Structures are given as C-alpha cells and as structure tokens.
C-alpha cells in the first residue's frame, strides 16, 4: 500500500474572520495508524477532521496525504472517505444502493457496482439487509452500512466523526473492537474524532489531545495517560489528582493545606503542579508511601471491580482514590470519616503548567 500518512502543517481554520476554531496545528499521522483526536466540544477536533476530509477549507496551512498536497482538492479526489456522526445514509435508497452510491457517481456499470456493494455488505455482515431502507435498520446496523459505504472506494484514509456516540454502551464496545480489527486488516490510516477518553485509549496508536484549537499533547495512549503534559490533559483524560505545591523559605515543598510533600525535582520555581494517578493512592498508607493527604470522605462509589473514594482536604481541594474492591473492603471507610491517603514520590508526575 502506498504511503498514506496524513500531515498537517500550520493548518488554521477561522470562521467569519474572528472565531479561530483551529489554530496553526502541526500534526503527523503515520501511514496505517489509528489516530484519535480528542478534546472537549469546541476544541477544534471536528473542524480538523473536516478539513482533512475537504468538507471545510483551511484558512491557512497545508494538508498532505502521502506525498500529495490535498489542501485545495475536493473531497472525492483526496483518497479519503468520511463516516458521519449521524451516519448520513440516504433515506430514499436501499442499503445496497447506499453502499454503491460512490461507484454510481464514478460511472461504474450497474451490475458491477451492485456486485461490489453486495461484497462490501457481506464484509460487514449485512448481506441479508441489502434491500432494506436505512430506517428499517437498528443503529448498529446503520453504522455498519455507513462503514461499508465509506470503504467501498478503497480509501487510503478513513475519517470517522464520533462514530460510536449514538450507540448504547454494549454495542459501542462491540463496534470499537470491530473498528480496530478492520483497521488492522485493511492497513489504512484511521482518523477518529471522539470526546470519550476510554474510546481514544482503547483504539488509538496515536492520541491527539486538543484544547481551544491547539494540540496540547500527541502521544501513544499510555504516554498520554501516564505522563499528561498539562493540567488540562490530566483533568480531561481523567484518573488523576492534581496537587498544587509551593516551596517554602527552607526549600521544602508543601501542598495547599500545608502538609509537607517530597518531590523528586530539580525545579527552580517556587510553585508547581503534580498529577498523581487516582489508582496509585492508598488509604491508611504504609511507610513506603511517604506523601500524605489528610481529608474527610465526601463520597464512596461502588463500581464493581473497584471503589472510588472522594475526599476533601483542609484547603477545600477534592481528591479521588480508586481502590480495588478487595483493598477497600479489607478496611472500609464511611462518609465523613477522617482519613489519610498516601502515595509514593515516584508516582507524582510533574505538569508543565
């Protein structure tokens, strides 16, 4: 397969001259990888996807697919295919005709295009539904038709706009697996826009976190989760407590509620922020976890395999602990209890702002 990496060079999108949706974004998505663009709504992830697709023109910058500059090309000449959030299936056409639509636009002869479309439908296990209208299908089936329609032209890049957001949680898990399998089998580049952290972490080879039109971090999923670059990434990806620390005159570090904290850093600044994974904190900590938080339990949530305990320290900051069910029930705590939580200095990750 030809090189089908996607490269964005200083790509900017402004609406109406004032609103900057995407602000000079640089990004390299390797050929054949699964990339997830993630961020809160309005962060520019969908605009970025739509510019790659050609449904939005870039105000400035260049978009490369493989070795071609596609910035000025119409959608159909980019070798991309888009799967729309609402699937955008043609309601007046049968599933087969939906899948065959782009072949029809290319002037492929009728029996040939129907044969190819039937093959593609079989690939997504919908061959019996060929003559049905989209309205007669379930959400999951509609989505598979949309997938078949996007793949019929053998695109080198598949663009997916929140493809799983309309499905119920069970189906979402199944489709997630199917998407990943398909991407591996086809070996093409997938660019997937989502606002669900679990989706991005589970699917992507490359997670790109966006905030206010800019990329704040682009890394492998594990790196994004373990080493969030900024406070925003740590908060958005979840699973972290953020601790603000201040250096006192004697050179020792303290948290906002005044408790001392040991930090492995050569940081010269007088204050810094740490991210500590919620699952790395322990209640009633052993001596090898010297950093301590003191607070009152404000919530206990049972989640099955784990229990989340929320506590508030004297400074009014909220913290979460994710304890395994076993650990929690060995020494349970109740609402209002004064508790001590501890973590190792090695588990404290320094944030850039």
């Amino acid at each position: 397969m030809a090189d089908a990496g996607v490269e964005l060079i200083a790509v900017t999108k402004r609406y109406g001259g004032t609103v900057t949706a995407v602000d000079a974004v640089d990004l390299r998505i390797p050929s054949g990888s699964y990339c997830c663009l993630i961020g809160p709504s309005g962060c520019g992830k969908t605009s970025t996807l739509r510019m790659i697709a050609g449904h939005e023109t870039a105000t400035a910058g260049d978009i490369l697919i493989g070795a071609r500059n596609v910035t000025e090309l119409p959608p159909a000449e980019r070798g991309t295919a888009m799967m729309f959030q609402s699937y955008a299936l043609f309601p007046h056409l049968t599933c087969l005709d939906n899948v065959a639509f782009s072949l029809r636009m290319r002037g492929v002869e009728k029996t040939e295009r129907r044969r190819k479309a039937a093959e593609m439908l079989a690939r997504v296990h919908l061959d019996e539904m060929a003559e049905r209208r989209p309205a007669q299908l379930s959400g999951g089936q509609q989505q598979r038709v949309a997938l078949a329609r996007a793949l019929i032209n053998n695109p080198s890049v598949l663009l997916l706009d929140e493809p799983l957001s309309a499905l119920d949680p069970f189906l979402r898990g199944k489709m997630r697996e199917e998407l990943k399998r398909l991407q591996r089998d086809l070996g093409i580049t997938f660019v997937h826009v989502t606002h669900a952290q679990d989706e991005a972490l589970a699917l992507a080879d490359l997670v790109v976190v966006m905030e206010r039109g800019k990329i704040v971090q682009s890394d492998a999923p594990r790196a994004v989760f373990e080493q969030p670059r900024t406070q925003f990434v740590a908060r958005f990806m979840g699973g972290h407590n953020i601790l603000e620390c201040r250096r006192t005159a004697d050179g020792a570090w303290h948290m906002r509620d005044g408790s001392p904290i040991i930090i492995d850093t050569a940081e010269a600044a007088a204050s810094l922020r740490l991210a500590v994974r919620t699952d790395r904190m322990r209640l009633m900590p052993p001596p090898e976890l010297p950093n301590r938080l003191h607070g009152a339990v404000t919530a206990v949530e049972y989640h099955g395999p784990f229990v989340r305990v929320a506590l508030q320290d004297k400074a009014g900051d909220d913290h979460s602990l994710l304890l395994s069910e076993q650990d929690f029930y060995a020494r349970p705590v109740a609402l209002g209890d004064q508790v001590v939580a501890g973590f190792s200095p090695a588990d404290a990750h320094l944030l850039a702002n």
Partner: protein
Amino acid sequence: MSSTVITAAPTGAADDRVKGGRRRFAAFLPYLQSLPLWLVMGVFLLIPIATIVAVSFWDDQEYALVPTFILDNYRDALSSRVTWDTYLSTIRYAVIVWAATLAIGFTVAYFLAFHVRSTLWQMVLFQLCAIPFLTSNIIRMISWIPFLGRNGLINQTLIDLHLTDHPLEFLLFSPFAVVLAFVHLYTLFMVVPIFNTMMRIDRALVEAARDAGAGPLSVLRHVIVPLSLPGMSIGTIFVVTLVMGDFVTVQMMSGGQSASVGLLMKNEISLLQYPSAAAHAVVLLVTVLLMVWAILRVVDIRKEL
C-alpha cells in the same frame, strides 16, 4: 374522585349504580371529545357535499327546483361537447401552471433552503414571497392589467425601445395572461411545502454525496430532488386543485374568451340551473379526487403530514 363517590354512597346498590353510570360516561367520553370535529366536518363538508350530490339528481322546470331522481343532468353534462372542451382546456391550464409553478417553486425553495446561510435572511426572503398574499386575489390579478394592456407598461417600453412597432396583443386577455396570473397567484403554494421538506433534509447527506464524488448536479438529482418529492406532491395537489376549481382568474384574465369548468358552473348558476351546476360540481369533484389519488400513488406523503 371515585373514592369520594364510594364513601358518599350510603348503600351498596346505590354505589354500584353510580359506578356503572360513571363507567358508561367514561366510555362515551372519547366520542364527546371528537364531537367538535364532527360538527365542523358535518356542517361545513358532509352536509354541503351531500346537498350538492342530492341536488344534482333533481329536475328544474322554469324557475322551480323539483326534488326527484333523474340522471338527465349527468347525461346532459357528459354528452355535451362543450363540457369536454372545457375540461380539456381547464386540464391544460392545470398542467401548464403546474409545470411552471413547480419549476419556479423548486428553484426558489432550493435557493432559500440551501444557499441562504443565515436563518434571518431565510425568514426575510420567505416573508418577501408571502407578503403579496396579504392582498386579495382580485387585486393581484387586476394589477396585471395596466402592466400587460395594449397601452400598458410592457408594450410602451417595447415600442419605445423600437423592438416592436405595434402593441403585442397576446399579453392581456389571452391564455398567456391566464397562465401568468395563475403562476403568480399559486407559486407560493409550491414554495412553502417544498421549502418545508428541504429544510428537513440532513445537510450531512449533501456532504456524504460530495464525499462519494457527486458534483452539484448529481447532488441535486440523486439526493435533493428525491428527498423533496413529498413537498413537490403536496404543492402539486394545492396548485392542481386550485386551478381546476378556479373561475375568477380565467374570466378576468382571458377577457371572457377562455372557458373553465368553474366558469361553466358559474354561468349555469346565474341562469338558476342549479341541478346541472350541481352535476358539474360532482363531476369536477370526482375528477380532482382522481387526480389527487394519482399523485398520492406516485409519492407517499404520509410521513410529511
């Protein structure tokens, strides 16, 4: 409610009677609720039509109506050459006006729905289409006369520009004028339903078509036109029924030179030939119902209603 009734009733028998009465009343309630609709439909639709149908079988002698059952009115109506010619001419008007209003209505609706981006402008332009309809039909028709007349604006301008040396006669009091007036009067009835259907088309469908390589014309042909069909057929029903039943426009704009079914009936009524006018009305009703049925056979509009 029911508990107060039970405690208030002194004996078991009285209690049952009250409950039975309430139950009968409750079963009757839905019919009572639909009564206003039945009254309106009955008074304004069923009784008038029944009267027309009944009168169409009556006889008229001199200036008296004779309630009887004869088929002469229908025989006369259907065997007359004039009737057939009039129907033909009316249907011809309907077809021409339908084609013109559909073409204009679709274009206007398409422009409003897909090319006007801001909702504000959409509303402003839409109102612009609708405002002429706040004046009476007759006024809107009459205002064509100084425009199209022998010494009207158009002819004066053409003569002044030396494009013609004598006034064009076909402009006014002609089939052309009739069609023009109809198109002017009824295009909005096409624009509104088509615009309505177009606004419901998911814009992502247009993008999906473009993504699949469709050019602007293909998008129109394969996506927008098929999805606007329900609106087009509703507009068609409006325009066709309005033109089929019209008599004022034809009379005024043709200068009395063109016939229409409505005009035929109007003339009979002015001669006090109510039974034969009623027979014509029934024939027209059946014709129009058949046309509507045919339109509904082509396009299913149920999901639009």
